[in-house]
């Protein structure tokens, strides 16, 4: 098992699987980043405007803390996660199901190429990396947008010291847990797609249906995992 995994990783470097990996990073990470940036900006702006409406003041330190906590512990995992489901999971289910229907997956096996190592492993690694980067992109975008909207609405000047202070309030353990959750959820989603969503299809019309239902199920898994995590982290914080 260990030798097989080592061989898979060795094969991943300098092989066609590297192309699969780089394409998946481009697709799931680079191409999705604009949507994540805009979503983060929209959410942070809404947060600042609501805060402004309630307190009549600009972005104070309490508001910064709340925004950071909300982003680091929840939204920066969940929003990129949904974008990942909507784009990458749909595409992955369609692509892998089509390969099963047309017999391409079987042809790979007959050539002696392990479909998991060529088709799934690079996608899993790439999706995990992309989701970690999108987590950081969301965080950065949310903070910058919050300060920008605060300056525009309440006339609070953008102060470098306040921005640095905002980043300093991010707890390293929260950041690490957020990054791990992002990567783990993406990996679980890809394995789920491979094991459950793309097997047993025998005709082309089943592919679009499989993609639609598959995305729904993966989103539910995402939400359930997040709910469990939030309950656990709340319990741990309350009863250490």
């Amino acid at each position, binding site marked *: 098992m260990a030798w097989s995994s080592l061989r898979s990783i060795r094969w991943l470097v300098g092989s066609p699987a590297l192309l699969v990996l780089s394409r998946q990073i481009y697709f799931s990470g680079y191409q999705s980043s604009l949507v994540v940036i805009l979503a983060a900006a929209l959410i942070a702006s809404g947060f600042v405007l609501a805060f402004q409406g309630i307190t009549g003041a600009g972005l104070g330190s309490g508001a910064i803390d709340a925004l950071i906590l909300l982003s680091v512990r929840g939204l920066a995992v969940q929003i990129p996660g949904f974008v990942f489901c909507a784009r990458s999971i749909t595409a992955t289910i369609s692509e892998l199901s089509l390969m099963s229907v047309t017999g*391409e997956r*079987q042809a790979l096996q*007959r050539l002696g190429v392990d479909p998991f190592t060529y088709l799934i492993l690079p996608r899993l690694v790439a999706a995990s990396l992309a989701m970690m980067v999108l987590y950081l992109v969301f965080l950065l975008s949310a903070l910058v947008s919050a300060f920008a909207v605060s300056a525009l609405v309440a006339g609070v000047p953008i102060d470098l010291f306040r921005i640095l202070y905002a980043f300093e309030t991010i707890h390293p353990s929260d950041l690490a847990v957020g990054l791990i959750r992002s990567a783990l959820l993406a990996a679980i989603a890809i394995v789920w797609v491979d094991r459950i969503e793309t097997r047993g299809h025998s005709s082309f019309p089943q592919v679009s249906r499989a993609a639609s239902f598959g995305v729904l199920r993966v989103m539910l898994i995402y939400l359930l995992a997040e709910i469990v995590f939030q309950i656990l982290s709340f319990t741990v914080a309350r009863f250490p």
Partner: protein
Amino acid sequence: MSNLLAADRSKPRWRLDCPAQDVGVWIDHLCDGLKRAGIDYAYLSPQRGSLLSNITVRENLWLPLAWRRPFPPQRLDQGLRDLIANLSGVGALTALDCDSFLKAYPDNLPIHQYCLAILLRAALLRPRWLVIDAGWFFPPIPGEWCTPPALMDALFASAAWLTVAPHATTLAGPWNWTMVNCDDPRLLSWDEW
């Protein structure tokens, strides 16, 4: 080139007869057995799913090579150009634009170039055994070969062929086939061939 094109029919050409519904199972079994035994083999099937449709022909040729041993893509290009240059006088290769052929996606290729890509992929693997789906020997257009027999002979002169065919199927071509039954004990141990 003359050496390459000299048909060497001294290598055995086996034909495994089985019920039509079991052809796929037998191909899976044979490929799996050869892989486990560590014997270099290749597989030929004319079906559309034989090449991955979402990558180019070049990547399709590179994939099984790189799986078996580290194989830089530059070596693939050189090996392919040498192979195609050596075979330039044979049938399907006469008017081949190598660059556009390698950059094309399999679904955009006409059937004879699709088969050629499968054939080149198998040839690059330098197999000792060649597992063939019997459909390979049925010309898509009656009277027109998907792959000219001379090309098959030239590329796989040193390989033993094993074609899996449904009962009572007549395989076209100039080859003399030696029959193997499904219960042949040699199918369980590759050392006995």
